């Protein structure tokens, strides 16, 4: 009995499917070209062909980008993480306090100055990972919505950041610590982490299970995936990435402040969604998120480049976030409807 399981005729079977990342890339190009054109028109110079600008375009978003790598994985599991910005704040304060130079008379721990740089790095990874694990454990084992679990962590971690030194900023790190975020290092760190997690999502069991959980948690469970353990791992990784972002940010700024990283979580989520990561879970990639991140970078630099009044920038940014996602959704629908 030879049977064809596809009964409807289709004439698009052999056509290669354009990956969603391609759309985001085209969007990025379009936005950059608009700025290029407006640049020649109004400012009389090129937007894109300026090495300094290209550097800052990537540099200014790469720290949020590091967070967005973790947020991408969380969203792929069907969750959300509102706590990353606050974790950055808390982790930066705590890690920096173990990285202070003895040159500074008012160090948080006067007895613990000039520590090797590995100490604050480990501290940041542990604090970030711990905060993330708490998120994950709450979500996996108590079954409360990720929105609420991470909202609670957002409030609590910001509280920790403010409490740690009673609002006093922590500064004067050792030179080795200050080196972490110097120059283009944040970009390099972002690229390495992005590559790592791109590979992990695409080619490892970890990635397969992450997509499976976001796609159909019930199916993942009956297929024998340890869903709870995996969720804790994904949130812990997101927390650790926020911890790394805290390291890079506080090092780049040579200071840590309790208010650091405020609202970064929303930018990171927006980057991921603009990059094609579905809030419903199961779909998206680190490459897409990186492209979404570049869109952010181009927009911010473009605004300054065109000397757009700061008062209008937020309005325009809000519109662009929405427009980017509307365009993506529309493209997907068109493809589904009319190919």
């Amino acid at each position, binding site marked *: 009995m030879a049977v064809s399981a596809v009964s409807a005729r289709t004439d698009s079977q052999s056509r290669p499917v354009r990956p969603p990342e391609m759309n985001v890339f085209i969007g990025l190009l379009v936005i950059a070209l608009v700025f290029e054109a407006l640049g020649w028109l109004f400012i009389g*110079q090129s937007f894109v062909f*300026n090495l*300094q*600008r290209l550097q*800052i375009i990537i*540099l*200014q978003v790469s*720290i949020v980008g590091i967070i967005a790598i973790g947020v991408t994985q969380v969203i792929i599991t069907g969750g959300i993480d509102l706590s990353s910005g606050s974790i950055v*704040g808390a982790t930066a304060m705590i890690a920096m306090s173990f990285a202070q130079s003895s040159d500074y008379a008012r160090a948080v721990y006067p007895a613990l100055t000039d520590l090797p740089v590995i100490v604050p790095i480990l501290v940041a990874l542990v604090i970030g990972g711990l905060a993330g694990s708490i998120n994950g454990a709450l979500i996996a084992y108590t079954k409360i919505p990720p929105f609420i679990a991470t909202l609670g962590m957002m409030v609590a971690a*910001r509280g920790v*950041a*403010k409490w740690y030194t*009673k*609002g*006093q*900023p922590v*500064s*004067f790190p050792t030179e080795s610590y200050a080196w972490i975020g110097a120059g283009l290092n944040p970009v390099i760190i972002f690229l390495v982490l992005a590559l790592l997690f791109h590979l992990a999502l695409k080619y490892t069991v970890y990635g397969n299970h992450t997509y499976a959980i976001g796609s159909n948690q019930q199916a993942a469970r009956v297929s024998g995936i340890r869903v709870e353990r995996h969720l804790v791992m994904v949130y812990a990784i997101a927390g650790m990435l926020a911890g790394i972002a805290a390291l890079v*940010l506080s090092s*780049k*700024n*040579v*200071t840590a*402040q*309790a*208010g*650091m990283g*405020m*609202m970064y979580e929303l930018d990171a989520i927006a980057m991921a969604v603009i990059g094609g990561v579905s809030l419903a879970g199961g779909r998206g990639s680190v490459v897409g998120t990186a492209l979404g991140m570049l869109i952010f970078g181009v927009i*911010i*630099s473009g605004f*300054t*480049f065109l*000397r757009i*009044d*700061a*008062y209008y*920038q*937020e309005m325009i940014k809000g519109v662009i976030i929405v427009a980017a996602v509307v365009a993506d959704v529309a493209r997907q629908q068109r493809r589904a409807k009319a190919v």
Partner: protein
Amino acid sequence: ENVGVSMALFDDNFLTVLRNGMTDYAATLDGVNVQVEDAGNDVGKQLDQVKNFIASGVDAIVVNPVDTSATQAISDAAAAANVPLVYVNREPVNVDTLPDSQAYVASNDIESGTLQTKEVCRLLKEAGKTEANILVIMGELSNQAAVVRTKDIHDVIATDECSFMKIVDEQTSNWQRDQAANLMTNWLSSGVQFDAVIANNDESAVGAIQSMKAAGVGMEDVVVAGIDATQDALAAMAAGDLDVTVFQDAAGQGQGALDAALKLAKGEAVEQKVYIPFQLVTPDNMQDFMAKN
């Protein structure tokens, strides 16, 4: 000339006056273009804004630092690109090692809390108090101005002549009038006895006043102090509700900073530290400040 300005945040009354002082002044000058950016209280964003300015080829940069301990990175970036830089309003850590092409225009935040608390101390003594309970309303806990001003209060109280003052509780209103009002009502409902309220900013002081009046507290028996000398605060002072505030010449700072930036852009030498002092405002001299902020 094109001057890039990075402000710590836009939705702060005082900084708005400073910013407007700068842009209004620029409008009176020929060929001066000021581009103001909002750092949204984010240190990292501010550094990026400076770099974006450099990439866009501005002639000078004015920075109102989000975090005064983070200025070394900003100074280095500007110096490397040979763009003149002026800090305004908040003193950078590296103020003593600024390169020749950089300057600093401000008032000293430590003065504000000190002036404010000393005046409260004086008023309480004048009223013949030998023991005085103080409530402190702090600004946002992650903000340095709040931290410094609160510390000033403690420092003044630690001196001998003001040691009769005692802080009974210290809570935050996040600079917000509404939260300060709720905070005061909560205090009142707990039956806390107090002789003075010292707030880190005028908005919070005004919020506290609103609640006290709503609860029928006699405003002549309580000393209320804020900082900023905003329009609302001066109106409250005129009504006899607010007793002390502190004026910081925001517009003057903005103007001074722009002047310094333009001079540096032209290669002229400027004074590296320009201090514009705080001024204590009381009902006696408030008329002088009516039209200023």
